[in-house]
């Protein structure tokens, strides 16, 4: 499952605690055997105790392995030590073979729980070799008769306690594996939820972008219909009338011609305003700084522009910054009050771009900011370029709009 992928910090701590319990159990066993060897004066007992202790030492590298999140390595050290004990015990006491089967199976259970399929296959192959060795030793070894040094009932009690303890140890191991599985699942669920939230945000933003585009077309249609189109219709009708009057020999009144002239001039003005609203030609022809200065000149409120010459923008960034500043300054004109002044600042920050539009006007209720369609529009424009935009305002505290666009060379990697 997580053999090579590594585990969460909590799961690693769980596994480490499990290994520590097994170490303590091994040393208690070694000490117990040594005690009995001394009590009953049996040298083979001392050999057995030393063997158990050695195998506990063999398993020690499992701790640094777990600390390195090397679960595969830890499993192999554990298996080597556990199987080593079984081989030593069966060599000295062939009658203990049935009990040692649990030593054979223990590491395989751990492996099945913690290792991926490839690693598990290698562990099982090793397990088969150990099984054959245990079987051969169990059935063929003469043994040392060390178990005969203690009363038969004591030997039986030791074996039964050994079995019972191993059931507890293996259950604890399965418990650890289960917690690891749940933790992994929780992490996956949390990641999935975060992804779904991001996806929902993206869908909502995309819907707003399309809706903003549609609303813009509606606005343009109304502007064209109410502006230039009406004036041109009026002009066409008046020209037709004038031509008819002239043909009939009726003198044309100068004020009628003046009216037509003024209709045509106003139609031209309307079209110029419309064209600038669709896309400002100054932005394509003379660049962002001039376009912003042009917006500032048309603003009814004084606007100061600070433009760091190190700022470089691609066309998408220039358009986003232009339209965000335009919307912000239109908001200043509409809402900040007649005495408000505004400052627009563009600078380079962390190889990205920082833009701020700050006014000292009447400000607004901060809770209303998030509901403003204009603000959402600005946020969408900024996030479409991988940037972030925040709006701060409070009554009588003015409004501050800050936007940061990431370094373009890394923006795609981050996003």
């Amino acid at each position, binding site marked *: 499952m997580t053999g090579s992928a590594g585990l969460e910090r909590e799961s690693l701590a769980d596994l480490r605690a499990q290994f520590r319990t097994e170490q303590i159990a091994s040393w208690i066993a070694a000490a117990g055997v040594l005690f009995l060897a001394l009590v009953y004066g049996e040298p083979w007992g001392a050999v057995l105790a030393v063997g158990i202790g050695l195998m506990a030492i063999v398993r020690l590298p499992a701790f640094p392995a777990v600390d390195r999140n090397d679960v595969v390595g830890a499993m192999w050290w554990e298996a080597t030590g556990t199987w080593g004990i079984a081989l030593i015990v069966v060599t000295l006491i062939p009658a203990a073979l049935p009990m040692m089967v649990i030593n054979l199976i223990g590491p395989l259970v751990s492996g099945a729980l913690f290792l991926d399929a490839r690693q598990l296959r290698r562990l099982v192959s090793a397990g088969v070799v150990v099984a054959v060795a245990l079987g051969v030793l169990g059935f063929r070894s003469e043994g040392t008769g060390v178990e005969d040094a203690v009363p038969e009932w004591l030997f039986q009690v030791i074996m039964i306690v050994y079995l019972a303890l191993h059931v507890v140890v293996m259950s604890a191991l399965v418990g650890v594996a289960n917690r690891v599985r749940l933790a992994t699942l929780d992490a996956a669920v949390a990641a999935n939820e975060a992804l779904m939230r991001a996806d929902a945000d993206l869908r909502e933003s995309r819907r707003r972008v399309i809706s903003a585009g549609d609303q813009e077309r509606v606005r343009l249609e109304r502007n064209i*219909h*109410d502006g230039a189109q009406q004036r041109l219709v*009026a002009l066409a009708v*008046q020209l037709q*009338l004038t031509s008819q009057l002239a043909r009939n020999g009726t003198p044309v009144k100068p004020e009628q011609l003046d009216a037509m002239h003024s209709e045509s001039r106003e139609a031209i003005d309307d079209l110029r305003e419309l064209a600038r609203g669709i896309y400002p030609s100054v932005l394509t022809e003379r660049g962002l700084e001039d376009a912003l200065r042009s917006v500032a000149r048309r603003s009814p409120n004084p606007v100061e522009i600070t433009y760091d010459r190190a700022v470089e923008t691609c066309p998408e960034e220039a358009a986003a910054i232009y339209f965000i500043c335009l919307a912000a300054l239109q908001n200043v004109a509409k809402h900040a009050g007649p005495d408000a002044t505004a400052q627009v600042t563009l600078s380079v920050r962390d190889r990205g771009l920082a833009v701020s539009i700050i006014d000292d006007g009447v400000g607004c209720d901060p809770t209303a900011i998030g509901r403003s369609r204009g603000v959402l529009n600005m946020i969408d424009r900024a996030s479409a370029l991988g940037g972030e935009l925040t709006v701060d305002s409070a009554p009588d505290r003015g409004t501050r709009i800050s936007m940061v666009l990431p370094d373009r060379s890394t923006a795609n990697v981050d996003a």
Partner: protein
Amino acid sequence: MTDRMATVHATADVTVPISVFVVDDHPAFLRTAAFVIDATPGFALAGTAVSGTEALDSLTVRSDINLVLLDVHLPDLSGIEVARRRAEAGGTEVVILMSTTDRADLPGDALDRGVAGFLPKELLTTQALRAVWDDANGVS
């Protein structure tokens, strides 16, 4: 409809001028309509309104209006709705809808209730004015 109007031969009674009321929210068109009406013999501008409700208020109290040039797109009520209400109120004036919108973009039943005809704004001429009037009065 405009083709048909073009073939109508105008024979309006010129002794009593026909009172024309113009409803449009664009001042440019109101001025222009005034020029055309002024230049059409037998027709006189009797008043203007810049919204549907203002038009309804005026038309309710004025019995001298013979012809209404009614813009479809008004800021409050649509011209179609104004015509329908006038018809329901028993108005006898001839109502001509006008618009810069294509005829095809108007509702299919735009000319059903209380409307005598449709004239694209840019086609308003002295001849067209007389033609819609004659057409609505069954003169051919």
